[in-house]
């Protein structure tokens, strides 16, 4: 008998099995924990308990507000940077883009530590916890917001701008009618990449907020020590938020992959 012919498709099997065991199964286990009580009976109490605790609710609101402010500030800084760089005729502009990406390659805890030292020096560490947290998050996540809009704007055909000015449009119209609509996918993927970590990455809020600022991600940490069922419920809610926002923003595009790997 002939040995079965080697097929390129079979190369997929190890990865598929890996995903099954370490991505799909964990999600199902989270789902199971979220809807059971400590005796492993079906229960929706975790859901009810989480949303009926006023202190939890106020933290959620705070956390969402912090994430929103972080996202808006990031956008206000990053969008003009992306726009200026993308429209620039400079020959070596990739060097400047590189400069914006470079700090991301320093370990992020060390980077946050650097800001902590800076705050300590100025004397605002432990004084303005919410400001410090937002500042740190903006600092940390800014490059995520620069690259995606930049890459989408680079792809905009120059002839569109020429056509716009030929037809009597000024700088403002070309920005509002060409740049903004065409860079929307980049803006959206930047927003999701900043908003989500701002709600969940508690390393920044712990180190810069003097452990006084609690964000949603910190709940999971606290529940991990005490109550996995509640922890899983919080994780599940975050998971749903992620999927809804991904669907709304039209999915994740691989070419907007950040961290400058494709620069």
């Amino acid at each position, binding site marked *: 008998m002939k040995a079965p*012919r*080697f*097929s*390129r*498709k*079979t*190369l*997929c*099997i*190890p*990865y*598929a099995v*890996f*995903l099954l065991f*370490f*991505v799909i199964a*964990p*999600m199902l*286990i989270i789902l199971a924990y979220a809807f059971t009580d400590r005796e492993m009976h079906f229960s929706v109490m975790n859901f009810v308990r989480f949303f009926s605790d006023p202190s939890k609710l106020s933290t959620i609101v705070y956390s969402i507000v912090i994430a929103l402010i972080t996202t808006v500030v990031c956008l206000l*800084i990053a969008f003009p*940077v992306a726009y*200026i760089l993308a429209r620039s005729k400079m020959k070596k502009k990739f060097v400047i883009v590189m*400069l*914006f990406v*470079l700090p991301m*390659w320093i*370990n*992020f*805890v*060390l*980077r946050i*530590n*650097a800001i*902590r*030292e*800076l705050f300590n020096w100025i004397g605002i560490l432990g004084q303005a916890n919410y400001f410090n947290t937002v500042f740190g998050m903006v*600092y940390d996540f*800014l490059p995520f917001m620069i690259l995606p809009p930049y890459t989408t704007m680079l792809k905009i055909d120059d002839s569109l701008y020429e056509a716009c000015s030929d037809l009597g449009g000024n700088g403002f119209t070309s920005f509002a009618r060409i740049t903004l609509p065409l860079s929307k996918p980049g803006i959206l993927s930047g927003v999701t990449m900043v908003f*989500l*970590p701002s709600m*969940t*990455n508690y*390393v920044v809020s712990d*180190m810069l907020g003097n452990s006084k600022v609690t964000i949603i*991600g910190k709940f*999971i940490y606290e529940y*991990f020590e005490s109550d*996995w069922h509640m*922890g*899983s419920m919080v*994780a599940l809610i975050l*998971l749903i938020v*992620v*999927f809804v926002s991904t669907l709304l923003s039209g999915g*994740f595009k*691989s070419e907007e*992959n950040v*961290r400058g*790997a*494709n620069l």
Partner: protein
Amino acid sequence: MNKKALAIKCCKAIFIGIVLLLLYAPILLLAVYSFVSTDHIGLWGSFTFAHYAKLFKEPEILGMIGNTLWLAVVAALLSTVLGTAGAIGMFYSKKRVKALVHGVSQIPVINAEIVTALSLAVTFVSVKLESSLFTLIIGHMVICTPFVVLSVMPKLKQMDNSLYEAALDLGASPAKALFKVVLPQIIPGVISGFMLAITLSLDDYIVTFYTRPEGFETISTYVFNATLRGNAHTAETLSSFWALTTIIFVVIVAFVVLSNLGGRRKKEAKK
């Protein structure tokens, strides 16, 4: 160029400059103080290499740097092999299989890291798997491999498929054709996937925290704990982080400059 255009140009340059300055200010502050004999930024002292010496004297600090590095290399290598094979397999699979695997592969990319971390930790405990280097490496592979797939996929799409068929017609075995024909065409994607995996692993705090064995420290976990403990003993440790940050920064700058020079030379050679 008229005056107005020049003014706008200046404004743009100033804006970019200020943002860059803000981005680099904390790092430069540490870089300066890493050569000053003080444990508190703001207090001046004399020029010293003491902070750097501490890095190489403390076995604890050396250990956590070593852990971070080997973990990143091992996790990135495994992720690259798994992800490259997975991407090739997916590329030649039926549309529906491809869509399914690709969809699942995206989950760790878009998911909040803490959700991935918690789900893994809960899973490992559910199957009575104690936290070990195995669980830690699996954890890092879960966050790295999808990015390898994402970097390899575009190169597969650009590939000239007839070359593979030609190799088979000329008598090459499928495995040989894969290594000699397909792999060389997608190698840039594989390399950038590997680099991406390294940076993701080096940077990771959350997944590491939830899957690491007891007492295993990486730069992220060690620095996080040291800054939050905040007792007298750590003032010295903290100042050694200034040196560590500076070294990493210099290594990165050197790497970027060298790889750009290398890339340019290759391009010129091609001309």
